[in-house]
């Protein structure tokens, strides 16, 4: 029987390949994701261990806010006098102190040199302590005062030569530096796309405004001194708010941010692979169902010559398992190519990922193969069960059809119940009380899965009316092909339903994403409109990085400027939980109009050193009113108290302010390097080209800052959202492609099945062109059914989700929704190309004789 299965597979190569393609894509995504993230993670590991080369222990500042394991918050620096004390410890052979931060190199065009989103790293180098130095000099010399060394990769891309002068911006305005040398990181020319800028210690301290301070001390122990002994000695002399760790532990802690981002990226990408596989399961189930229906007589014959039901089941399962194995292996290979291609693609886009070779872990192979095979087997289980129900007598019946499954008559009720159960699970996840985030996600996931499954199965019952309506234009204006195409889609509603359902899933998710994005965008715009009464805003070039407070202050001296109001942000612990603490400059009442429940606009200007205003929900949660005291713990360990002067209600789309906002004067005393998220500027005469020019001129020395008016500000802030949206579209396109293949497959099989009928139609005078058109119409109707179901479902899901999330209102992305319908149309047309050609090519005589 295995022979029968394998031969059957070999005899239907095209069909098998089309079926398998659905799995190939899904497995490729899963494998590609693992390979990509593993490789990046591996590259980062080697970078971070490289950084701590020769380091047995490292001292850093300790944030008062987070636990000691994570370095995400602003870590306070410490006094450099500690270095001398460390060097005197008996177990210490050598120690070196350093500072670091964001250092932007300014290109010859006056713009910041930046590759994609990669960081611009600046740090001090102590060239005399070679054992700690992970950089190797490839040209020139190590930096002295007012000199900089730059990584070779950046230098060659931007034509930076030793001896030339380059602008560098740290904290404060950009300053000119002489390029003293070019360096490699270890043997590599670069770390991903990061730019590297190394200085001597005093220069770096000045650049990062850390005069007399250090961010880190690295220590090498004397031979024979154990790690534990070294740590003990260091601990004995540590001042408050500092900590010591082993070199490895420090490397791991530095890597933790990157690691958690990578693990997020991995889950994120895998979930799209999962969607593609889920859609693939639909495609496979449908393809196998059709193939089995066409082989009814074959199965019946097998039964008459002694095959048992179990053997029939086996032969189908062997066939699909082999398909699954082959598809998964191919998928794994394509996944490898995909990861390689993504590295190249990102590189071409200027977003270089650290890459020290592709890493194929055994886990990747196991998971990818397992997932592909299991999905294929699960998807073919139902059709295989139906094959066993073929009675032997079908061998002698003309035009024998697959008997309906045992549960066929419950299909309508059952699938509707499944969908309803899905909605119930989703609603419970969204609105149930006392669920953890994880539980919410699990319920939502299960709910969505059940909904798609239920609606997918139920689609068969919607096909007839939908095809009737959607096929109406074709039937009316398309002549005989139009009429026949409409009839054909209704002929086997289950088949059409399943093909459409596969497309439905992809389009439902795309619609959901578009609805959410539109909701977020429009509520954000509404919020800006409600709050904003200023002429200009100043932000970082990338729209979201905080910029040093000093940058925006420089516009204060521009003639005609009336108000410059910075909004600062920093980490803090308030009532035991981590929040961001925000701060505003006096004059804020001229740039914002807040909706006050207690207090008034005047509060904005009179916060001083001890005043604060809070938002309504924070006030409700902690039972605060005007006059209450709020105590705040900041990273440096200080715990100032503020009195509540006002309570405001932010618009639905949020505000620039966190739960607690204090005066900028108070903030600047608590945070060593205060940064602004935004600065808002009012100028006499409002927004004019002249004013814009003057402000831009004032910011010329701060290349990282940019000036924008209200509309630009809105667009820029929404740009990040558009970028995310585009990434999501690309990832979801994968499942749409899978469903496209589903339609192709169904059509090819249908054409094959109707060979005799097509021959008859051609014999009675239908032209090739008409045959092609008929298949095309059928394909488009199927795709449009999928689009209609998908878009409707997507809207329903989005409305449910938005009902739960208070920060978003429902808004209609009309253009996007219309373009999805166009996409479906195109999918339909593309899917029809190959089957239509096959149908038109049929030789009339052979088709009529076909048995």
């Amino acid at each position, binding site marked *: 029987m295995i022979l029968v299965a394998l031969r*059957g597979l070999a005899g239907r190569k095209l069909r098998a390949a089309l079926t398998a393609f659905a799995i190939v894509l899904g497995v490729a995504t899963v494998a590609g994701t693992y390979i990509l993230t593993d490789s990046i993670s591996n590259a980062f590991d080697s970078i971070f261990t490289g950084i701590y080369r020769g380091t047995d222990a490292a001292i850093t500042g300790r944030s008062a806010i987070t636990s000691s394991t994570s370095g995400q918050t602003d870590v306070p620096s410490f006094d450099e006098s500690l270095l001398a004390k460390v060097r005197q410890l008996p177990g210490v052979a050598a120690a070196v102190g350093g500072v670091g931060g964001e250092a932007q190199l300014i290109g010859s065009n006056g713009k910041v040199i930046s590759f994609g989103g990669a960081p611009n790293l600046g740090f001090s180098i102590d060239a005399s302590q070679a054992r700690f130095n992970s950089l190797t000099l490839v040209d020139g010399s190590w930096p002295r005062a007012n000199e900089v060394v730059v990584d070779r990769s950046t230098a060659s891309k931007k034509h930076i030569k030793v001896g030339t002068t380059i602008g560098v911006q740290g904290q404060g305005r950009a300053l000119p530096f002489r390029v003293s040398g070019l360096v490699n990181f270890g043997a590599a020319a670069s770390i991903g796309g990061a730019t590297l800028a190394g200085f001597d210690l005093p220069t770096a301290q000045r650049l990062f405004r850390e005069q007399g301070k250090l961010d880190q001390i690295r220590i090498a122990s004397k031979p024979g001194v154990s790690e534990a002994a070294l740590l003990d000695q260091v601990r004995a002399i540590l001042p408050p708010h500092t900590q010591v760790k082993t070199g490895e532990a420090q490397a791991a802690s530095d890597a933790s941010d990157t690691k958690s981002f990578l693990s997020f990226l991995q889950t994120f990408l895998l979930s799209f692979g999962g969607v593609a596989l889920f859609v693939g399961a639909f495609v496979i189930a449908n393809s196998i169902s059709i193939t089995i229906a066409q082989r009814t007589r074959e199965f019946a*014959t097998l039964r008459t010559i*002694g095959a048992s039901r179990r053997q029939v089941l086996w032969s189908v399962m062997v066939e699909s398992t082999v398909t699954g194995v082959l598809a998964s292996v191919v998928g794994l290979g394509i996944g490898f190519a995909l990861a390689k291609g993504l590295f190249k693609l990102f590189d071409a886009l200027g977003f270089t990922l650290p890459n020290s070779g592709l890493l194929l872990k055994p886990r990747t192979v196991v998971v990818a193969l397992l997932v592909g095979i299991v999905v294929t087997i699960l998807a073919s289980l139902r059709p295989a069960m139906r094959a066993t129900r073929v009675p*032997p*007598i079908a061998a*002698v019946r003309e035009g024998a059809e697959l008997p309906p499954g045992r549960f066929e008559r419950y299909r309508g009720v059952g699938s509707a119940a499944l969908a309803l159960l899905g909605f119930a699970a989703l609603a419970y996840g969204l609105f149930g009380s006392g669920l953890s985030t994880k539980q919410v996600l699990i319920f939502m996931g299960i709910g969505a899965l059940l909904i798609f499954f239920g609606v997918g199965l139920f689609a068969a019952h919607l096909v007839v009316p939908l095809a009737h309506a959607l096929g109406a234009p074709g039937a009316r204006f398309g002549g005989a092909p139009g009429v026949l195409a409409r009839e054909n889609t209704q002929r086997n509603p289950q088949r059409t339903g399943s093909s459409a359902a596969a497309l439905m899933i992809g389009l439902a998710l795309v619609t959901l994403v578009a609805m959410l994005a539109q909701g977020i965008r429009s509520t954000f715009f509404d919020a800006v409109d409600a709050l904003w009464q200023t002429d200009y805003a100043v932000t970082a070039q990338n729209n979201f990085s905080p910029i040093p407070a000093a940058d925006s202050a420089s516009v204060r001296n521009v003639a005609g400027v009336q108000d410059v109001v910075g909004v600062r942000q920093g980490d803090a612990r308030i009532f035991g939980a981590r929040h961001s603490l925000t701060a505003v400059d006096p004059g804020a009442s001229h740039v914002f109009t807040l909706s006050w429940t207690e207090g008034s606009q005047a509060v904005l200007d009179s916060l001083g050193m001890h005043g604060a205003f809070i938002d309504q929900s924070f006030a409700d949660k902690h039972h605060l009113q005007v006059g209450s005291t709020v105590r705040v713990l900041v990273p440096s360990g200080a715990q100032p108290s503020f009195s509540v002067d006002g309570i405001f209600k932010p618009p639905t789309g949020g505000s620039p302010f966190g739960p607690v906002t204090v005066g900028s004067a108070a903030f600047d005393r608590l945070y060593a390097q205060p940064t602004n998220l935004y600065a808002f500027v009012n100028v006499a005469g409002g927004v004019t080209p002249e004013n814009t020019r003057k402000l831009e001129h004032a910011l010329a020395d701060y290349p990282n800052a940019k000036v924008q008016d209200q509309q630009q500000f809105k667009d820029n802030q929404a740009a990040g959202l558009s970028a995310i949206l585009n990434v999501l579209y690309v990832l979801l396109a994968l499942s749409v492609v899978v469903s496209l293949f589903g339609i192709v497959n169904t059509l090819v099989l249908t054409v094959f099945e109707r060979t005799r009928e097509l021959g008859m139609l051609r014999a009675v005078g239908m032209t090739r062109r008409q045959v092609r058109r008929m298949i095309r119409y059928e394909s488009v109707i199927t795709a449009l059914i999928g689009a209609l179901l998908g878009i409707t479902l997507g809207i329903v899901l989005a409305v449910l989700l938005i009902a739960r999330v208070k920060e978003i209102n429902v808004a209609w992305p009309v253009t996007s929704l219309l373009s999805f319908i166009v996409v479906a149309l195109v999918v339909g047309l593309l899917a029809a190309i190959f089957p239509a050609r096959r149908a038109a090519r049929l030789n009339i005589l052979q088709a009529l004789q076909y048995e």
Partner: protein
Amino acid sequence: MEGSDRANGAVVEAHALVRRYGEGETAVDALRGINLEVARGKLTTVMGPSGSGKSTLMHLLAALDRPTSGYVVIAGTRLGELSDTEVTKVRRDHIGFVFQFFNLLPMLTADENIRLPLTIAGEKPDAGWYESLVKEVGLAARTSHRPAELSGGEQQRVAIARALVSRPTVVFADEPTGNLDSRTSGEILELMRHSVDAYGQTTVMVTHDPRAASIADRILFLNDGLIVKDLPRSEPQVVLAAMEELTPT
């Protein structure tokens, strides 16, 4: 089992077979009470006009369908209450099929098609038997071809070899010449007759071709669901005359 075979020489028995299609007023009785014994080693032909119930009778005898009442005994086993698995066992051990449309598996070679019943049963063919069978049906040179590469007559030869390969108790042939031209039909009929004479293969053939019927040892005539005539071996003219009697003009 063997004993009962020997006692009356019958390998297939039908007892008061009734097959009703549909229910209530629209019910149609295709068979209205058939009693029959098929003798070992003989070729029995069932004839009758369209709608006489001859195909239904064969389906019931071959365990493809279940009677409304009455029962069938094959090689001493009463089929009535057997489960699907047990019926499958009976098919493997006792029944071979030859179909009007050949029903070969298109992806298997002629050779593989012939061996299929044994493959399914997990048995190995007796090499000598297999080779003589292939030679006997006249396929020796064509066994590596796929059905699509064979003529209709050759395909039916493959089908006959497939039916014979497991040496079943009885071979059922359903209009084996219905899809062939007259010259090829003659060859196929000869082959079937030969299998009865050479191997003592009990065969039941349903046909409406008088020439096909004339090679039989016994000819049963069905009309309106009843056996109306039971002839021994007869000439085609006699068969034709009997047929014309059944179809009043």
